[in-house]
């Protein structure tokens, strides 16, 4: 997974407490992590200390970093200064591994986004060791 630096980012960032920390740290190293349960095989995202299906302790697994758009919106008005650059696209992405992930969809004209279109993940660092996952057209 491609990693780009965005250390100038002034907006809100993930706190990264608990299991979240490992997810954002892995992203900064170019790995997209989801969780899989060793007991029942259930896969989940966001990261948690429990399998939501059977209650066991989940393990990390690396996802391929590909997906398709499940749904999206184009944000055209938002009063938060960090997001003054409008419009931008936010989307839910279906991963082939069987989980769904929310994120920003960049590198595309907002008017041309379509549900079902294939996308690829990339990571954008917000500090020296952590990154958020974004998506762009495959």
């Amino acid at each position: 997974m491609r990693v780009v630096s965005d250390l100038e980012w002034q907006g809100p960032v993930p706190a990264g407490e608990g299991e979240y920390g490992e997810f954002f740290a892995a992203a900064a190293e170019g790995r997209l992590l989801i969780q899989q349960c060793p007991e029942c095989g259930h896969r989940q995202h966001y990261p948690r200390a429990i399998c939501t299906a059977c209650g066991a302790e989940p393990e990390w697994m690396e996802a391929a970093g590909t997906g398709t758009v499940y749904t999206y919106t184009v944000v055209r008005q938002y009063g938060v200064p960090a997001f003054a650059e409008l419009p931008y696209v936010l989307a839910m992405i279906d991963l082939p591994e069987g989980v769904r992930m929310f994120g920003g969809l960049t590198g595309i004209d907002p008017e041309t986004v379509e549900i079902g279109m294939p996308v690829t993940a990339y990571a954008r660092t917000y500090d020296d060791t952590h990154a958020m996952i974004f998506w762009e057209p495959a």
Partner: protein
Amino acid sequence: MPSRHPVICGIGLSDYPVVPHLNSVQHHALAARRAIADCGIAKSAIDGYVSTSGGGPAAGDDAVSMAEYLGVNHRYIDGTMVGGSSFEFHVQHAAAAIREGLCDTVLITYGSDQLTRMGRVLGTGGFQRDAQPVTGAMQMATPYGLPLVGAYALAARRHMHEFGTTSEQLAEIAVGIREFAGLNPDARYRDPITVDDVLNSRMIADPLHKLDCCVITDGGGALVMTTEEIARDLCHPPIYVLGAAGTQTHWNIHQMPDFTEMGAAVCGPEAMGQAGVTPADIDTAQLYDSFTITVMLMLEGLGFCGRGEGGAYVEEGHLRRGGSMPTNTDGGGLSSNHPGMRGIFLLIEAVRQLRGDAGEAQVPNAELALACGSGGWLSAIATVILGKDRPS
């Protein structure tokens, strides 16, 4: 044996929609005074208190602080906070407590000075106004700049994709509810609107326009619930709680299992089953209209129409005045009032309708009303069935 069947005996609204001289606590109190006066019960008879956990310690309207402020030395207290639908859950809980004998008479209150305190930033200004790190599952969404409206827009877009639903059909919901708002002198916006007005209003987050979104106001409401037996001596014929059920499918929008199906599909049938009624039996619906898409998903989940058929259903005019399912007869959150958590107003309007006190907006011969609340992001959903007649 005296009947412990739970009923709603008193309702009260605080002032709305723009009330700069009241804070949240005072909205609670004004609504409570009016609800107590409405039913004529001695305040000392109230032995149960229910409210949300409130706007945090700063607001001073959490359940225990409000119980003290209102002077209710409760035997039963519930501070369930699941967002806008909290009050439908409250009725479910209070009904069980009354039936079980944990208490006899419950006061439920809500108050919010949201418009006066915060202005209209909630929908498009976000919860996160600065660059503080975001904790919990919100950190998977907020840092990307997800506004409240955007969360609902994700569901609306998916519904359009799966079922061919149009912006015109969503707009019809706002148009019909505005028509009812025109009959409510206190509603925030009363002038009639057309489908074109909605489509021509500013796009906030595709595909939701400004007029697909609820208003932001101040306001408050209160209910008094008691047993059928105690209600016999009060001012109004009791309104019976015939069914109440709730469910939660997710909390954060990014965890919604299926963006075109909400928990109404679970708690709607359950509440109607308790009441022994079907959607066709309901005379008026009070549905949480945070956004037009909320109403559409609710109509489908509750079974007023089939899944994916919400667009065609609303186009047929069922929700309008004189339609088969007059909906949000007070003007709803889309046009009348939405101080942040609207669930209590659904119940108050349902009671008004069943009492025959809804004035020009009265649904003729209303005997059964449904209130369905949505809390969070289409997350925690509860349905209450109210009836004018004693259950057989």
